């Protein structure tokens, strides 16, 4: 655990790190679909053959990335998560996974960055969808520092990685991929995944609970989870579709009778605009909402 304070937002950091990686590693290429073009100007000028804007063509975006990988390159593929994962899901399933080639998919926007844009620009189901595919490493960095480290690690690694970049951030950055013990207590264990840790900490500040955090959510760090667990009450908090990670908790505790509360975005059409903070509240994912759910779960 480190205490580096983030000064840059994760999306700007993604642009910066991607540009540096193109400079440092000749096997990398960047493919994007208009979105975030403002971050890639220098990279495009310096590496015109290794930065490709495909236009507003997301099916093509993903399969171009896969085609690059088929020639031995390491592609970074980027647009908003909804267009990357949901619109072009078959391209991810067949272009990357079925061909058995890797790459780094970087989805922006998450569940509610685009709160005022409405449902068309929101992808609370992206992690769940990616989790249907075998062998995908899924990251949800909670700070700019984590974004930088995760991107560098994912590009240097093999296989298919999905990196979920959003505006919400945590105060602290954590280095390694596994579960981090942020607070140790005698009672239930709360698992915070991605940029929801600060809300979880605020919601449970006066409670004798264990709080765990991970930015890399697949594979799930089962070993640490089992090792740390005291009482078999588990609260899972993830800022995307509620229940997405319930299956990994269930698998981790298959031989342990346990109770599980899964918090995340609700399975409904919200049909409200406003701000990300308002959406977080509407899904019960602000500190007060998490507090209410945890209290009610533990009182039961």
């Amino acid at each position, binding site marked *: 655990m480190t205490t580096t304070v983030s000064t840059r937002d994760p999306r700007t950091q993604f642009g910066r790190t991607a540009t540096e990686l193109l400079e440092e590693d000749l096997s990398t*290429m960047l*493919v994007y679909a208009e979105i975030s073009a403002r971050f890639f100007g220098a990279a495009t000028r310096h590496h015109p*053959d*290794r930065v*490709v804007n*495909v*236009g507003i*063509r997301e*099916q*093509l975006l993903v*399969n*171009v*990335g*896969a*085609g*690059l*990988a*088929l*020639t*031995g*390159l390491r*592609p970074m593929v980027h647009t908003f998560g909804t267009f990357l994962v949901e619109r072009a899901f*078959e*391209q991810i399933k*067949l*272009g990357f996974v*079925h*061909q*058995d080639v890797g790459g780094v998919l970087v989805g922006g926007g998450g569940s509610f960055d685009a709160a005022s844009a409405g449902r068309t620009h929101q992808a609370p189901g992206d992690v769940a969808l990616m989790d249907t595919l075998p062998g995908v490493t899924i990251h949800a960095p909670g700070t700019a520092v984590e974004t930088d480290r995760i991107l560098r690690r994912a590009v240097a690694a093999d296989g298919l990685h999905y990196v979920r970049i959003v505006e919400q951030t945590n105060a602290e950055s954590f280095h390694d991929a596994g579960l981090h013990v942020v607070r140790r207590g005698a009672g239930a264990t709360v698992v915070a995944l991605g940029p929801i840790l600060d809300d979880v900490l605020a919601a449970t500040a006066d409670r004798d609970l264990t709080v765990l955090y991970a930015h890399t959510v697949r594979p799930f760090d089962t070993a640490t989870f089992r090792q740390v667990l005291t009482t078999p009450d588990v609260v899972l908090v993830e800022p995307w579709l509620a229940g997405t990670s319930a299956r990994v908790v269930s698998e981790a505790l298959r031989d342990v009778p346990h109770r599980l509360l899964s918090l995340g975005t609700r399975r409904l059409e919200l049909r409200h605009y406003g701000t990300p903070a308002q959406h977080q509240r509407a899904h019960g994912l602000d500190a007060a909402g998490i507090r209410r759910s945890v209290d009610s779960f533990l009182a039961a």
Partner: protein
Amino acid sequence: MTGDEKHDPASYSTLDVIRVLYERVLDVSPDLVDDPGRDRFLLSKGHGPSAYYAVLCDRGFFPESWLETWASFDSPLGHHPDRNLVPGVEISSGSLGHGLPLGVGMALGLRAQGLSSRVVVLVGDAELDEGSNHEALELAAAVGLDALTVVVVDNRSTSYAVPGRIAQRFATEGWHVATVDGRDHDALEKALAERGVGAPSAVVATVLDEEDAAA
């Protein structure tokens, strides 16, 4: 070799094109399957792969004994080819509209690495129904991917055919376009051997014999 009957016309219609590519045009052989500089053939229309398998077998990519058990549980040869199971197969295909976008990515990747290999993608006329192809053919022309060739095997299988539309579609985007008799090996060789300058190439191979017309 027998297979899904409805896919037989798809298979026969591609035999001549695939033979000409492997026998006369492409720089690829069993010795080169891992050579970064090899030419790539992508069978995008992955259904009816018996012609493809027959040619790969004939060229020595895998033993003839594989053909006898195709589509059985342990066979590497399925009704749609898998690049992870069959030597020489560049892409796993079956779902239509993926080969051309993958080919665009491959051509971009080869260009970025300074490799002059060609990428030849075979699609069917009905496969062009899939919008993903149109995303790919627009970008390929826009970025001048002259390593890329698309062979459209036109056996009039699309439900909503417009005469001449395929060639026009590619020409409108700036592709080099040739339309040839898809059974004429010399004409196919001439059209497929040409690599465009500054723009990708499309070869519309018309295949209309009675068998196909009745399909």
